[in-house]
């Protein structure tokens, strides 16, 4: 039993290693990443400094706003599985056929391979961002142990939600071979409804009310707002779990129905 489990884990770790290694080719890439990180934090720092020269009504202070926008960028560097793009490419090229022949389901392959990619990006993209923000621009990230642990739990659930959401979009590409439209919809949803660039609590009143009803805020806004502003941790957790359960049911239903009908396009 134990042996079987460890063999299963090994197989999945191998997928993650593939994802990690694929990125780890050019050393110069790391320098470019550091430079990119610096530019991003610089733009945000000066933009928000200029904005907060006026008296700003709203839930976020200058310090908190900077914490939020930089943390959102850090999160976005290593939280996307791009399951939609991967699945779309598999359908388009027909490589789905041999992916399905492997003894691990294709959804798991995508998950673990992109986990490897995200660990790579966490170290080589997100970490430079964090260091840049803290040491070059004095963004304060000092949180208590429990706050951080709570944040990581919520961010972990966000990861799962985003994976399922992207998987759902990827499954749609079984219908439409063109994935552009789907991808642009995803970006639109992310930009406005998830709180990727701005905390939802500073949106104009009517927009905020509408966005609040949608589930997408649990991707970015929910974990980040908890980290910076605190609040009802258990409530957010419960909300995330409910949406994840719902999405999971939808995805597995669709997956089952679609795989029966799949026609591989030549390949």
């Amino acid at each position: 039993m134990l042996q079987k489990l460890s063999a299963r884990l090994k197989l999945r770790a191998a997928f993650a290693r593939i994802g990690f290694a694929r990125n780890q080719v050019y050393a110069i890439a790391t320098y470019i990443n550091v430079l990119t990180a610096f530019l991003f934090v610089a733009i945000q720092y000066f933009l928000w400094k200029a904005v907060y020269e006026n008296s700003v009504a709203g839930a976020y202070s200058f310090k908190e706003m900077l914490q939020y926008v930089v943390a959102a960028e850090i999160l976005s560097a290593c939280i996307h599985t791009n399951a939609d793009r991967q699945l779309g490419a598999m359908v388009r090229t027909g490589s789905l056929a041999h992916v399905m022949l492997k003894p691990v389901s294709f959804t798991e392959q995508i998950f673990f391979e992109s986990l490897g990619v995200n660990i790579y990006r966490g170290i080589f993209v997100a970490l430079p961002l964090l260091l840049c923000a803290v040491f070059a621009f004095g963004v304060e990230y000092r949180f208590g142990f429990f706050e951080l642990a709570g944040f990581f739990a919520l961010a972990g659930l966000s990861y799962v939600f985003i994976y399922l959401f992207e998987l759902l979009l990827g499954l749609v590409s079984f219908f439409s071979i063109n994935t552009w439209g789907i991808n642009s919809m995803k970006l639109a949803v992310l930009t406005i409804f998830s709180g990727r660039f701005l905390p939802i609590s500073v949106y104009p009143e009517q927009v905020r009310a509408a966005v609040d009803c949608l589930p997408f805020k649990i991707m970015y806004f929910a974990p980040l707002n908890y980290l910076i502003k605190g609040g009802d941790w258990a409530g957010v957790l419960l909300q995330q779990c409910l949406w994840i359960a719902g999405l999971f049911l939808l995805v597995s239903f669709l997956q089952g129905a679609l795989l029966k009908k799949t026609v591989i396009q030549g390949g």
Partner: protein
Amino acid sequence: MNMLSKYLKLYLLAGSNNLKSLLVYKLDFIIGLVSMFLNNAMRFLILVFIFNLVDNIKGWSFDQMLFLYGFSTMVTGLWHCFFINVISLPYYIRTGEFDRFLLRPVNLLFQITIDSLDEDGWGELLLGLALVLVAYSRLGLPLWKLPLLVPLALSGSAIFIAVSLLLSSVSFISVGGVPVMELMGKLFEFTKYPVNIFSQSLKVILTCVIPLGFAAYYPGLVFLGPETLPYLILAPVVSAAYFVFAYFVWNYSIKFYVSSGS
């Protein structure tokens, strides 16, 4: 003169070929256009939300920011439509296609530029133009300045071409695989905001070292500022000079090119 007509002919030929290959997939073309429009519009919405909190940023009103944002989007769109292939250089090097270009008796940069056109850029260009025109009428800017938009947008995109040339020079030295696209995205983002919000040192960098300020901010001052003439002369001159500089660097770094052999 003979040379010029030859190149013009080539450009038209390649352009019509590219257009034909785009129109094979008509739906793709339209979806690409719409989605680029939508994505940029969403990013713009964030700016609208920011102005819901304050009524000016360092003395820039919403309408003025709208103009600058639109102008910058327009310039990015121009670059995206006609010159984005410059950054495909790592791809050409990796696949060995670059060797093919080297053998032809036509300017290298010209060949790369015309090798493919990008349809996504049109959405950006259209949105940018729409934002500029809306801002133009809301600000009540004088009509006689309107035709100046065209040459200034072209000169602005020359800055972008220069920046992308400089960045793609890196790929001669290290074969492909460099995430220049993200870096370029962040660099171009600087042009969406007024230069005067940045610190003194960044202002100097954006004006003199990497003159991204001349892509949108200084041309924008031709319309928004009290003084027209100095910026109207300065912007194209700086763009041209920077472009020539970047072109020389790019040409020089070809010397370091070693074929990947595939």
